[in-house]
């Protein structure tokens, strides 16, 4: 309980009278990587968006480091700074270069010194292998490169937890690897992450815990990802995983 960074209690979300999330309970501990899998439209992405205050919720509570997170509260901006998010579609700002994209929030929102942030940005760019593209505009980058920059842009805020929402879903297959490699590195260095993905091998390799989502609820939860992927306990998870075998 003490070391749970993010805790979700009985979260309900409705949209146009459809229930998207039916009372989700979840605790994410520091340094833990949770992977959420499940069929499209099961509410995985919505959950992540709720955690970042991008969606109204109809019931339940979200706590980050013991503090209640509310979409329209005054402190939402400072809460969001502690939660990094990378989206499925490319969300870089098209009118800014790679470096400007990365520096914008730490300099303007967190009011940190530009020189210091820039040094850190270069270090991170080096780490994702894109230091030489710092003056390019998003249009000049491939999808995989854009997503790696988006990860850097989230990391430079020093988030306590990173939310990754199907970040490889819009990529050509040959670019998926370079992005996933970056995420695997982050996991190794102890980042706390909540990941929604359709890449099963990746999920198996990176997860400390796997959640199987369907119809807006957690159907199966496993602390032993390898065992889960080989022998899921529920029939619904078995059916879902079967669809990935050919």
């Amino acid at each position, binding site marked *: 309980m003490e070391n749970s960074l993010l805790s979700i209690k009985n979260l309900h979300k409705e949209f146009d009278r459809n229930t998207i999330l039916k009372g989700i309970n979840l605790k994410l501990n520091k340094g833990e990587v949770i992977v959420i899998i499940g069929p499209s439209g099961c509410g995985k992405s919505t959950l992540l968006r709720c955690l970042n205050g991008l969606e109204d919720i109809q019931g339940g509570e979200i706590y980050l480091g013991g503090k209640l997170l509310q979409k329209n509260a005054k402190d939402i901006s400072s809460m969001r700074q502690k939660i990094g998010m990378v989206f499925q579609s490319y969300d870089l700002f098209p009118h800014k270069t790679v470096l400007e994209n990365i520096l914008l929030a730490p300099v303007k929102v967190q009011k940190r010194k530009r020189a210091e942030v820039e040094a850190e940005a270069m270090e991170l760019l080096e780490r994702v292998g894109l230091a030489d593209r710092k003056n390019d505009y998003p*249009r000049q980058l491939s999808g995989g490169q854009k997503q790696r920059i988006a990860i850097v842009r989230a990391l430079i805020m020093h988030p306590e937890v990173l939310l990754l929402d199907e970040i490889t879903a819009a990529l050509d297959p040959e670019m998926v690897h370079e992005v996933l490699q970056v995420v695997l590195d982050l996991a190794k260095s102890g980042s706390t992450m909540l990941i929604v993905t359709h890449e099963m091998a990746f999920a198996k390799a990176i997860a400390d815990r796997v959640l199987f989502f369907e119809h807006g609820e957690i159907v199966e939860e496993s602390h032993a990802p390898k065992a889960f992927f080989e022998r899921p306990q529920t029939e619904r998870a078995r059916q879902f995983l079967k669809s990935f075998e050919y």
Partner: protein
Amino acid sequence: MNLDVMISYLPLYRDALFLTMRVGWKGVAIAVLIGLIGSAIIHFEIPIARYIVSAYTQLFRNTPLLVQLFFIYFALPKIGICVSPEVCGTWGLGLLGGAYMTETFRSGLDNIPKIQFESAESLGMSRSQMFRYVILPQAVASSIPGLVANVIFLLKETSVFSTISLMDLMFTAKDLIGMYAKTIECLVLLVIFYLIMLLPVSVLGDLLERRLRHAEFGD
């Protein structure tokens, strides 16, 4: 065509050009300001204000500037609102242009993908930071072609100012023709001075558009 006559008219045309430009650009500035505010109100669906803004844009986009000016200049004094020709011209042009600019900027705003708003939010930006650093630069860039077209349209529209006895280029030409009947000379000068006023705007606008289209943010 009598060159000496034309040269003797030059100072009059020059003064008229300055007046036309002054009123024209002031009107454009007002229009841009109204457009920015109006488009934000409509885009963010501010209650009540959005209906006022859209009624305003419909009304001014669907009536001629000439009629708007006549209303401001001749009708409003009857209910106690009196303005000078120059103020009337400036605000008439500003209000007409504001309606067009609102439409242009609104479609610029609508063209920005939702994900841009969300990723700005997820970086912890406040509403004003998001607007300033992320939304406005993109909205302005995608509105440039419309903006240039509007500016040229508004500067052209200044020609109707003559009807409320503002001594602009058109008024000067009409006045001189009436006085001395040197029709051809006056009309040639009129064309030349409108070219001086509008050709640079047109050429610069073209350059700006081409730059944005082909070199759009580093392509």
